[in-house]
């Protein structure tokens, strides 16, 4: 089963990378891009009996290794195998 973990800096934390990318886009003429935040994205292949189980595992892994709770928060998406066309039906959880 696929679990996706999105790790982003907490809103209050400064994101120099996103800022620099936004500046670059502006100087390239993309003035309609108001702001950019950069985060990390993890695709986990997990052996789990259910979406719940997969999500729980992903959350534990995110807590312990993937995300730094001091400055980052994360969001998890699990493809519900029963669901049709996977990507449009998700089990979502948010932390931080």
């Amino acid at each position, binding site marked *: 089963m696929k679990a996706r973990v999105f790790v982003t800096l907490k809103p209050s934390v*400064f994101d*120099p990378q996103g800022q*620099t990318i936004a*500046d670059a886009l502006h100087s390239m003429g993309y003035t309609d891009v108001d702001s950019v935040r950069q985060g990390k994205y993890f695709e986990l292949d997990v052996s789990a009996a259910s979406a719940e189980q997969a999500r729980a595992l992903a959350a534990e892994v995110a807590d312990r*290794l993937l995300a730094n709770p*001091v*400055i980052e928060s994360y969001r998890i998406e699990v493809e519900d195998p029963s669901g049709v066309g996977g990507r449009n039906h998700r089990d979502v959880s948010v932390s931080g």
Partner: protein
Amino acid sequence: MIGSSVLERHGLTPDEYERIVRALGRAPSETELGMFSVMWSEHCSYKSSRIHLRRLPTRGPRVLQGPGENAGAVDIGEGLAAVFKIESHNHPSFIEPYQGAATGVGGIIRDIFTMGARPIALMNALRFGPLEGPDGARTRRIVEGVVAGIAGYGNSIGIPTIGGEVAFEEPYAANPLVNVLCLGIVRAEALVRGRASGTGNPVYYVGAKTGRDGIHGATMASAEFDERSAEKRPAVQVGDPFMEKLLLEACLELMKTDALVGVQDMGAAGLTCSTCEMGARGGSGMEIDLTHVPQRESGMTPYEIMLSESQERMLLVVKKGREAEVEAIFDKWDLHAARIGRVTDDGLLRVKAGGAVVAEIPNEALVDGAPVYDRPATRPAYLDTVTHLDEGVLAAAPVPDEALLALLASPAVASKRWVYRQYDHMVRTNSLVLAGMGAGVVRIKGTSRALALSTDGNGRYCYLDPRRGAMLALSEAARNVACAGALPIGATNCLNFGNPERAEIMWQLVEAVEGLAEACRALDVPITGGNVSLYNETDGKAIYPTPIVGVVGLIEDARCVIGRVVRRRGDDIVLLGEGFGELGGSEYLKTVHGLVQGRPPRPNLDRERALIALLARAAAGGILQSAHDCSDGGVAVTLAECVFDSGGIGLEVDVPGVPAPGPAALAATLFGESAARAVVSVRPADRSALMQMAADFGVPALAIGVTGGSRIRVAVAGELAIDCPVAEAELAWASALARHFAGRAA
């Protein structure tokens, strides 16, 4: 009257509050209270250490700038000044190792270029808990993060990290130390000061936008850890080395013009500290309007803006009429220079938000108004027991070969390559001694000169005897630069201690400062600045008292620089200085017997001074092939380190035995850590010249053997004590540190 909870949150006592009311002649507004709380925090006001720091010698013929400015400066000849300072970022590095260490590097670099100097070298002194054992996993994560953070910032901005030290001791497990030193070069007459003067001159804000991050960082750095520190976590900031690189280049470009009056970076206590300190130094006032301060988040209150510790921000005062020129320079670097106020003549820091005045405080009150405490100091009881070394245990000593291998593999002694390989230590093409090969040495392009740097400080020594420990810290740092061929000309220090409100901690601090002062006078190395980091303790458990000393040494002819490693087979090995078999507090006792006991070696400042003078002279005379000081692990470890990285050259020596109690005698001779010693190698032809010179300088010198073969063979008083293949010893030494991290996630 104000609630005690409010005062507590601001780390202020009722008396201090009263003091504030007196200074203002009224009750402070919330913003003003916040400003006082950060300026009067231990971190900014030095209220517990100030009266003791006065004891440090800060003057000397070469001193161009002592403590009080953003960094100290010494004259290095040819019209140039070396600007340097060491800073701690201990608490942030525990909370968030990567960013904590990275922003520490960013902060000290700003201190150097605000003086007008081009930063050319970084050093770092690190202390962590044990790499294995109960906290091992957490400690390894902290080490990985801290080293990566220092590398991430220093490498990116392009300043070589040329050296430092790392030690691992239990008391640092919950309170790691991250001290960073930066060195810069500037033409002496071009030194810039952090002064605001010239009524009507505009005040500019340049760099990163102000966010809510780091609010109360300064007070955090002054509050001992406890369960509640979790709430303080948002005080962590993310470093932006790219922004700082732009600031660095833009500021140095601006300083080439004469449009600048004064500049200061916004570090601890952010906008509050930079505005009032510049005003106070210049004996003037300042008025700023917060609506002009670039802000990252909407709806920030004046309190938040004045206390924010967002990184990579600078405050500048420039000459009226030169605005366009100044703004053009920052534009070139894609930086926005915001004009936020002007210099006044009323000595007040006046802060406006739109029309309204939200704070109006005499600069003096914020900068010098903080109370100065002479806190009670009493000798800790633990000293009665730990300073006694029970010889009994030494009876069960392993054979010297095993002891040597154990010492070489101990993290404190082992090669630090795993650390410094992550640091760009060659950028700027000035590094004459590659990392790991001795003290850090950078040449000064355009001159014949070079500067050597070393940081040292043995927490175990200081725990057992803070006065001696501090003397030995300066001694070792000075000895290390001398081993590169340099004459020590100035020092900076970072005093890392526990909670000064405890009399035992205060005693350690006082003893250490007095010891440091005495050593500085004896070796005449003035202290040009430094930093004090207190409250390094968790739930009442303090770190070892740890004064870290950074010494700068001058080498007039860069071609005479020498390193730790012997150069060829057949050279003579000479032992300079004398061993007294002092095992107290030694690496040997800790690693081999698991003891932190006894009194550390007796500092012998006269001999130290003579040895340093001899090393510098002999190196300048070109008669030394290599030199390495005796410290952790004693003469045996020093001898081994002299042949490591030589491509397998061995050595055969015979050292005199020391008169020590029975079973301890051999160990004491080989692994005792008596000060004022170094091992040098010379060509046979130069040997008599060295011996003569040593006699002239009054330094005991003994030709103990030769380089050659492929084994480390050390005899004591004619009896072979150590006989081990270089390859085996070097492998133990080279692989020990990396092994703790191999195969573990970054």
